[in-house]
């Protein structure tokens, strides 16, 4: 079973991100460490487990700037067979729906016809979780978001996902796009040998023109990135547990007015 895995490079969660005063909507990238989107690792791991069991190829697809190559190498070192990468600014500067059209075209190109398209539950940079649904729409296939469990059977995939107050079991016909959540599996660490071998794996650059996708005008513009307003300085209570507790009750009743 062939599987496409959508990959994205994002700043490490620990990174101190700051708005770039010269480029509205962008962050200062100089000091930042970029990594493979943490949720993508669940997608890569799942793709590897499935192809290790059932055979087939697991191939990565990425829309992203030049620096993205390190994230692709990480995914290749984990075990993806090869990667296809669209790195034109017109592609990666576009919104998620347009990026999904580009990815859909890239996935279909070269005669690759995956039964499953996997991606991470959310991109932790833009905090968007729409990619799997948008790619599915572009490919005219069904989707399921936020998989905590994936089971394959005979032309179908059954996915468990959490919604408010319930766990849903959703069955989708293949081919389908599924986004992967934490809990799905435990992503492997690349072995050092696999890191060395990944150097020889193919990363193919695909151009928008050859994919036949015109991103069109921007659908939305980030006018500015701003820091969240700082929280007002809080109150501190120290001392005997009983005294601390009663101080907090008073605060809850009189300041927060929660009780």
């Amino acid at each position: 079973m062939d599987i496409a895995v959508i990959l994205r490079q994002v700043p490490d969660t620990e990174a101190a991100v700051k708005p770039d005063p010269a480029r509205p909507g962008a962050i200062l990238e100089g000091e930042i460490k970029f990594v493979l989107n943490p949720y993508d690792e669940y997608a890569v791991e799942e793709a590897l487990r499935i192809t290790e069991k059932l055979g087939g190829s697991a191939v990565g697809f990425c829309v992203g700037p030049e620096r993205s190559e390190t994230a692709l190498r990480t995914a290749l070192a984990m075990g993806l067979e090869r990667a296809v990468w669209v790195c034109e600014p017109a592609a990666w500067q576009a919104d998620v729906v347009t990026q999904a059209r580009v990815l859909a075209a890239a996935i279909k190109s070269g005669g690759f016809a995956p039964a499953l398209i996997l991606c991470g539950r959310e991109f932790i940079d833009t905090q968007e979780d729409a990619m799997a649904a948008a790619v599915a729409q572009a490919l005219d296939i069904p989707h399921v978001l936020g998989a905590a469990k994936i089971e394959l059977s005979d032309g179908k995939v059954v996915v468990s996902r959490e919604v408010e107050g319930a766990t849903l079991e959703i069955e989708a016909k293949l081919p389908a796009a599924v986004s992967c959540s934490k809990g799905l599996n435990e992503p492997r660490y690349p072995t050092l040998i696999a890191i060395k071998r990944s150097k020889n794996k193919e990363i193919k650059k695909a151009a928008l023109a050859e994919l036949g996708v015109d991103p069109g005008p921007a659908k939305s513009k980030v006018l500015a990135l701003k820091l969240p307003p700082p929280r007002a300085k809080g109150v501190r209570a120290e001392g005997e547990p009983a005294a601390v507790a009663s101080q907090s009750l008073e605060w809850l009743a009189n300041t927060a007015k929660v009780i």
Partner: protein
Amino acid sequence: MDFEFTEEQRMAIDGARRFAQEKLAPAVAELDEKGEVNLKALKELGGLGYLGMTVAEEDGGSALGAVAYAGSMIEFSKVDAGCAVAVSVQNSLVNDAVAHFGTPAQRKRFLPKLASGEWIGCFSLTEAGAGSDPASMRTTAKRQDGGFVLNGTKNFTTNGGIADAIIVFTRSEAPPGGKPGISAFLLTKDAPGFKVGKHENKMGIRTSSTTEMVFEDCRLPADALLGEEGKGLKVALATLDGGRIGIASQAVGIAEGALEEAVRYAKERVQFGKPIAELEGLQFMLADMATEVEVAKTMLFRVAWMKDAGKPRFTKEAAMLKLYASEMAHRVCHKAVQVHGGYGFMKEYKVERLYRDQRITEIYEGTSEIQRYVIARSILGA
């Protein structure tokens, strides 16, 4: 001259950092308290290739080289210096000794198992009466029935309690017409007459195993000899050059970990109405710490590069590196505790452990005094 890591070195080091944060960090405080080894993590590191970083691929290693190894060691040491020394002993002392001095049969039998972490190795040199002066050792190996019989007790052996493969140094009988010397042997823990002795209760690196190794009429076949009979000191000294890279990386990692803790704490801790990081006296202290770490790190990667470049000997440079890095770590950890004030003295704070862990780096694999002696001899042409 190129100061950039290659892509694969960078990925190996990133992987080490992540492993340290995800697998070592959650367990280290408790294991330190109990004095226990994180054997599960160590085995996992073997599976990933971190226990065979300088072993050739055909021998089952990952052959990433000394630079990637030093960078990875820094990451392990920042978090769990005890686990890091186990990694260092396996890579620098055991694997390198077997790779350079082992017969084809020994390499084939030991290296794939060591490089994959299936076997943990140790390097048993020190004795109660032979620390900095290994030539005064009293453990003996006598020829008997075409093999050898070992008698004596080694002490302070890192990885002793978890070792499957053992390199041990003994006095040997004079060959016909020759002089008595030191010989090295390579054996497995099931050798008759061998047993692990006392487990040491240590001040630092408590997540590593340090034991006595007891040999009582321990019979070994002739092919257990590692290198030539009577030339064991050569095995020990050549291997220790590489070992110093491992211990220097450990010191750099501990120091960098302490520096990071100090910086974080200085930004959080408020006194006199502002974070203490805004006090000039403290800023200067942190600046000195950061500079010293950087100097040692630069030396470290240069010596590691010399090893990767196949320079035949780098004894002087390795000695300078180990001397500087370990004493630097002492100064940096001392200051890091100072930055923390009273909290730095408490076990709840990581610097307390780093401070204890640092101390041994000035002692093992050649004390600072021995390093100075080696350096002096080298520059005086003695």
